[in-house]
Every structure is written in C-alpha cells, then in structure tokens.
C-alpha cells in the first residue's frame, strides 16, 4: 500500500515538472559560465590585457594554458562575444576541439578554408554596438592533443593568413605545444583559483541559487576542489541537492506531501560529496605504522587487511596518496629524515599509479614502506 502511494505521488511530481521542462536548466557549470570578461574571476593578468585589446581593436595570436576548470575556454568565448556580439560571432569565430578530427588534413583544409575567406564588414546595427575588428578568430581548444605534425602544419597557416585571422590555442600543458608555434603567441597562464576572487564567484553562484550554507562551507569547497572552480561549482550543486531535495524525497515516501524542508549545507556534506577520506581513517593507519611492536614483518598481515579495507571502500589511490602526504608532512612527531624517505615512497607510488599499476599492490607497498621507515626510526 505504502509503496503504491509513493508511486502515485512520484507520478504527480513528474507531471508537475513536465510543464517547466521546456526550459530545463543546464548543470550549474554551464549556467554560470562567465558571460563577459568581467565575470572571469582571479585571472587578472589575462583579463586586463585582453580588455585593453577591446579598445585598440587589435589582438595578438594567443596561447592560454593552465589546469582544468580555471576559465580558459570561458575567457576566450567571452572575449569573442565582446568583440563581435552573438550574431557576428557565428561568421567570425571557428572553434575546433579535440572531439573534432584534427589530423593534418583538417588543419590544411578546414582551417585554411575558414582563414582564407574574406572578412565582410558587419551590418551597421552590429558595428554600432561591438568593436568588430577586421579579423577572424580561430580557437583551437585542447590543442595539447593535436599531433606534432598537425602543429607544424599550423605554423605556415598562421603566417599566411595573419593579416585577417588570429589564433587562440588553449591547452593544459604548455610543454605539449611545439616551440615554433608557442613562440608565435602571447602566452597567458591561468592560475589555480584560490583566495577571495574565487570565493566571491562561488558566493555569487550560491546566492543566485538562494542556498543557505553554513560558515566555512564555501571555503571548504574551494579547498577540496584544489583550485578548480568547475569542480567547486559541481560540488556545490550536488551538496545543495543533498541538503534540499533529499529531504523532500523522504517526505514523499512517508506519504507526507508537505513542502520540501531544507537545511543549510554543512561541511560534512562537502567532504562526502568530494570523496575526501575521513582523516581518522588515515590517522589510524599512520598510528598503527608508528606503534607496531616488534619487527615490521609481523604486522604485514594486519596492514594487508587494512589496505584491502581501503580498496573495498573504493577510495581512489590518488586521493589516499595525496591526503597521506599532507598528514605526514605536517606531523611534528616524525623526523625530517623519515619524512624525506617517505616522500621518496610517495613519489614512486604516484608515478606508478600514473602508469596504471595495480592500485592495491601500490597501496600495500606504500603503507608497508611507511611502516618500515617509521619502525626503523625507533
């Protein structure tokens, strides 16, 4: 009976949604993608320089690089919009990315075709509102996944059409861009986001969504997102669902159709969403390593059990390694010499994980190694 009621109510809820579905909102990261250069936070250097070009109506070739989620794609799209306006953008901007086929053939043909087209003067009503400089922009997003050959081919193209086209290359790793190409561009480094600007942006999202958050929650989100604002926004969205809608769902099951009852987002929500391993779990392991009595060999079977438990819990090994690192480096009871030995272990482990080595063996080796170092210290 109970479940029957629950079902009918869900159906109703779904019906109610149907009316509003036509303007189904995108995930927050897209909803709050910066619309203008002013919305881009924390990247002062790039924004200042680019704004100046808005006035002078000239632009160098550009290379944006930096870690994921720091605003590279957003910045160039915002720039293009401010230069041409949404209408003219279609004619003047070509965006290619790693999901398009980008071998040499593409660089030769599609980029050339676009670059070779004459720049047509904009209609008056557009020219009034936007600077509309007399060149086109080709955005090569995720350029680090272009082959070296394709990059070399691009070199010529860039020179041949530089009178009427500007290139903007975007990548995470600047070292993957061949030198001759990189040296033709003004480079802009996008920093990891921290500090007040990023916080202000996150607060802007949180206010616009009318969330109630406990003190320190937004700071915590930025911290666990490691300077990646995209991740921060996704975490915030998920937390808000957890604190708001989930209680609504529970009400439904109880057959109680009252309004959704929301509670503020807590730091615990953030930790859970971000997959942060509870510090106690790791501290317990480190403590066991320190306290092991007798030869380390005797405790290995116990360590094996603990490592298996970590694996069963599904924690990502990269997360374990990074949190382990933070805990050990800040532990005042461990001597410098031991710390450096452990740092060596951590670095080897990180490399192995990046190469795709088996995670449970790598973790077992790491933790047994730590126990060995700390045990030998006694």
């Amino acid at each position, binding site marked *: 009976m109970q479940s029957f009621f629950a079902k009918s109510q869900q159906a109703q809820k779904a019906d109610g949604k149907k009316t509003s579905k036509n303007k189904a909102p995108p995930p927050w990261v897209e909803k709050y993608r910066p619309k203008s250069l002013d919305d881009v936070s924390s990247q002062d250097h790039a924004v200042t320089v680019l704004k100046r070009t808005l006035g002078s109506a000239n632009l160098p070739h550009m290379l944006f690089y930096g870690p994921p989620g720091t605003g590279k794609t957003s910045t160039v799209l915002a720039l293009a919009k401010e230069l041409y306006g949404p209408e003219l953008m279609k004619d003047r901007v070509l965006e290619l990315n790693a999901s398009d086929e980008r071998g040499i053939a593409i660089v030769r043909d599609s980029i050339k075709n676009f670059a070779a087209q004459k720049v047509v003067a904009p209609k008056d009503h557009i020219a009034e509102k936007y600077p509309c400089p007399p060149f086109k922009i080709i955005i090569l997003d995720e350029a680090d996944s272009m082959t070296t050959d394709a990059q070399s081919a691009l070199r010529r193209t860039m020179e041949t059409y530089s009178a009427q086209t500007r290139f903007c290359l975007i990548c995470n790793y600047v070292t993957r861009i061949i030198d001759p190409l990189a040296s033709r561009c003004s480079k802009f480094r996008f920093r990891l986001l921290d500090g007040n600007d990023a916080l202000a942006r996150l607060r802007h999202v949180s206010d616009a969504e009318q969330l109630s958050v406990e003190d320190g929650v937004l700071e915590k989100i930025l911290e666990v997102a490691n300077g990646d604002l995209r991740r921060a926004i996704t975490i915030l969205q998920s937390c808000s669902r957890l604190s708001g809608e989930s209680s609504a769902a529970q009400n439904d099951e109880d057959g109680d159709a009252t309004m959704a009852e929301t509670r503020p987002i807590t730091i615990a929500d953030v930790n*859970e969403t971000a997959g942060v391993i509870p510090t106690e779990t790791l501290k317990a392991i480190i403590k066991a390593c320190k306290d092991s009595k007798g030869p380390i060999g005797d405790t290995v079977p116990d360590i094996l059990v603990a490592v298996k438990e970590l694996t069963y819990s599904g924690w990502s090994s990269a997360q374990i390694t990074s949190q382990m690192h933070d805990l050990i480096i800040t532990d005042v009871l461990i001597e410098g010499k031991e710390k450096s030995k452990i740092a060596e272990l951590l670095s080897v482990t990180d490399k192995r994980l990046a190469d795709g080595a088996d995670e449970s063996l790598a973790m077992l080796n790491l933790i047994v190694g730590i126990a060995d170092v700390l045990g030998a210290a006694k």
Partner: protein
Amino acid sequence: MSLWVDKHRPKSLDHVDYHQDISERFSALAATGDLPHLLVYGPSGAGKKTRVMGLLKKLYGPSVEKISTKSHKFVTPSKRELELGVICSAYHLEVTPSDMGNNDRLVIQQLLKETAETQQVDLNAKQRFKVVIINEADSLSRDAQAALRRTMEKYTKNIRLILLTNSTSNIIAPIRSRTLLVRVAAPTEQDIVNVLEKVAAKEHVDLENTKTLEKIASHSDRNLRKALLTLETLYTFAGSKTVSENTPIPTPDWEMVIGRIARELVSSRTPATLLAIRSLFYELLSHCIPPSTILKELTYRLIPVVPANLRVPLISAAATYEHRLKLGAKYIFHLEAFCAKVMVLLEE
C-alpha cells in the same frame, strides 16, 4: 532462465538493500533536470550499475527498461569498417568503447556527437537530454578521453554522460573536473549476508542455517555478484539436498594453480622449478587471467608463508615488477623475474 544476479537485481532506487545514502543522493539529483555528468567509481560487484539503472528509472520512468541492442558501424580513417554493439532505450544508450581497442576515440567522436547533435525526439520524454553510459571508462585511451572534453561541455543540453569505472586513477584530470564523482563502496559482509538471505528465501534454497551464507560472504572478496553466483552454484550442485555449512565452496581453478605456484616457489628454489612455473604461468595467461591479478594473488599467498623479515622486500618486489609489467610488452618476463627475485630473497 536468467542467472540470479540478473533476476534479483533491484529494479528501483527505492528497493536497493544497502548504501541508502547513495540512493538518496541519486534520487535527489534526479529530481531536477540539471543533473551534472557523473563518474561513478568503486570495486567490482559493488552495485554501481544497479544504482545507475535506478537513477535512469527515476529520470525517465519505467519505459527506460525497454532496451534493445543495435550494432553501430564505424569507419576508421584508413577506411576499415568496425562494429560495436550498443545497448539502447528511447532515452539512453550504453557503450563499452574499450571493446574497440585503439579505435575507441572514434566511438567518442562519431557516436557521441551524433547522439549529442540530435535532440530528444520523444516530446513526452521527461528530460530533454539523453544519457550515455560508458562502461569501463578507465580503459579509455588518452585520446578518447581528450575527445570527450569539449563534447561534454558543448552538448550538455542534449546529452549527459555517466562514466562507470573501478578506479579514477586512469581518468584524466579534465574529465574528473567535468564530472561529479560518486563513490560506491563494496557492501560489508553483513550487507552481503542480508541480500543472500533474501534471494535464498525467494528461490526456496534449503538452508541449514545462516552460517553457510556467512561463509559465502567471507569468500566473496566483498563482491556481491561473486557471492550470488556462489550461492546459485551451491544450490545447483546440492540438487534437492540441504545446503549446509560444510558444503565446500569451490575454489576457481586459476586460484588453485596460483596456490601451487606459491608452494613450489617456497619449497624448491632451483632453475628447474622456475621452468616448471613458467608453464603454469603460460597456462594461466592462455586462460585470460590478467597478469596483474596473477602477480597480486601470488603475493597475497606468499605473504603468510615466507619468513616475516622477507615480507617488506617481497611486497616491494611485487609492486616493482607489477609496474614494469604494465609498462612492458612481454608479461612472462616480469612474472618470471618476480619469481626469481623471490627465490633469491629466500636463499639469502
């Protein structure tokens, strides 16, 4: 007649037996249309797929369960034709691009883009977007992952991705940044016993007591699928007889072979043994047991039987050779090198 693991798979988020918190989270996320892309990770048999299917049902209603299998054709740049099986309903599709080996990037580029560029045709659909489930996302090549990046952003209106994976280590940072990470931990042994109990009751398994179930659970590596399969096997073998605590749980052949390797390694450290072990390794490899699994299982079996002072170097050697094995091309070299190293350790 389907296997119990499929027959008794919970069909909705409201009926899953453990990890209620994840179910709650999924229900909450499904309640509004702005679902982010998801990366669901956790050990094998933890119940990832089960929960994702529950999420789909919450999103689209029961008709998402009407699935069919299609085969999608791809043409490589060198004009070779390839086929990939795609499971789909009106609202979602599910692919395992790693089946395509190095051509997985094509799947991403062609199939996903096609799906993404066509809007939902069914006007009565509850969501405007389609969901694409990607199995074994950790074995996607770097190229394929790179190809996902902007697709994930550009087409969010029409497409949401759910990536399923055992571990996030091989997922590149830009993809991790674009998804909400959801961890599904393995069920506890008690959780497993509870599920086994329910299934046993439904299938009228003649059980002596729950001790049997506890034994199955403790042999399951906390993998619910494995536990359910074991229960079904025991039931089938027992025929009409009672399944009791003393009914032996069959060990898979390959584990027995590894057990034998461990014993031989410890008892006789000679080149002749090494040669004998090599043929056992070949036998395992030819049965498609992954070399990493062989090395890991062997290490776990050696740990209790070697002298305590050798355990640290043993593990260190295992981790080193397993790493090399992943980078190298000839598995047998590294498996043998590990054995030789263990022999040397034992001799010293």
